[in-house]
């Protein structure tokens, strides 16, 4: 079962706020006796000055998720749980927050922070952050460079650099908001 409720409000002509709540419930991989519930709250803030909309904009997003997962007990888990999973009921929490600012017609800079307990072992927590620079040579292509840092619960840090090229071929319909 999945449900999502969304609320939207224009704050000014140039800005608006989107809030949402989500809920999901279902059996997890341990079988029909084991249930996972997910609760989420999300928010998106848009700012785009109407007279300069092709040159300046800002979007901030955040989502918080709580996960309650039934897992096999201490007696059974060692035989059927995946590696790293903990026995018993797991209460995990995670969130991300990101911001993307358009500072010129074709240029965007952004950042993101992530923090999440692991779904199968909520005592373990991973954290990370990214910096992103995006260039749109045209509306049909995008070049993005990203630096990502992650501090894993297993006590090691990862530093990653990504370069991404996206392009579209052919016409497509307008995107909804």
């Amino acid at each position: 079962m999945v449900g999502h409720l969304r609320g939207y409000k224009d704050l000014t002509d140039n800005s608006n706020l989107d809030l949402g709540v989500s809920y999901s419930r279902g059996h997890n991989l341990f079988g029909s006796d084991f249930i996972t519930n997910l609760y989420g709250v999300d928010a998106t803030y848009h700012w785009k000055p109407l007279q300069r909309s092709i040159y300046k904009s800002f979007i901030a997003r955040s989502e918080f998720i709580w996960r309650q997962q039934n897992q096999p007990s201490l007696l059974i888990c060692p035989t059927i749980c995946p590696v790293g999973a903990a026995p018993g009921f797991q209460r995990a929490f995670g969130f991300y927050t990101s911001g993307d600012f358009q500072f010129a017609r074709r240029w965007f800079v952004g950042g993101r922070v992530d923090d999440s307990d692991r779904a199968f072992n909520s005592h373990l927590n991973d954290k990370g952050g990214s910096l992103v620079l995006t260039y749109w040579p045209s509306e049909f292509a995008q070049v993005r460079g990203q630096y990502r840092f992650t501090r894993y619960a297993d006590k090691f840090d990862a530093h990653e650099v990504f370069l991404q090229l996206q392009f579209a071929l052919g016409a497509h319909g307008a995107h909804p908001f």
Partner: protein
Amino acid sequence: MNLRPKLFSFVLTICLPAVLFSPATTAAKNLKVITTLTDLASLTQEVGGDKVEVEALAKGYQDPHFVDPKPSFLLKLRHADLLISVGLELEIGWLPPLITQSGNGNIQPAAPGYLDASQFAEILEIPQGAVTRAEGDVHPLGNPHYWLDPDNARRIAKGIAAKLTEMDSTDGPYFQQREQDFEKRLVEADKKWQTQMAPYRGRKIVTYHRSWPNFAKHFGLDVIGYIEPRPGIPPTPSHTIELVNLMKRENTKLELIEPYFDVKTPDSIARMTGGKVVVMMPSVGGKPEITDYFKLFDYDIGILTQAFQQTQ
């Protein structure tokens, strides 16, 4: 048992909300009209008078190609009796998902409550042959900025009057009378504008985007080049140099740009050519004082003639 007080309360409970929420119980409901641009809203208001409630989705100072299809627009469209669009794919980047998600069957394309105003207008710059993206954001059905010709405004107003009459035949004579009055006032105003622009017929200009062909044709101006190398593509250094050389060869001084474009490149061109940047309003509401179609032309012709005088 006396049931009269209970009966009275029951009747009041049923009738009071109907009275409270239907203040004009004897007056006909006004047509709710949503237009994409403020110019169409202004023309609809001229024709519809107090028999319509009209609102535009885009603002007059906003680039009409790039309007965010916000959820708040959906509520407006959901309750609309009539949607009037510019058409010719001007709104193709934002209007279709709004229409689809509105849940209003009356305003879907080809439905009785959908009106594409381009069918009434003289359309210029209709591409011949194959059109590809290599030419930029070309409008494959012709230039959609046609409302900037008073002759087209007359034609569109006639079309809107006919549509309003079709939707509300009781008020048909009212709409027709208002349309005729608008046409009379527009013809008079156009004579004034033509007189103001007469000394500058044949003058050459450059525009940022291809927004002014209908305006230029109506007032006898010659658009010799564009600051954008291709529609929707920002100016490049090589194109800018070519344009400067062209303006010098043709002794062209004026650059017309819309308020939603960056003035940095136009200003450098003006410095290099000894010319002038003129920020023209392409739509009603572009400035707070431009409250209707007449004031739009009063404003634009005022600043344009002043600029021509300053660059004689």
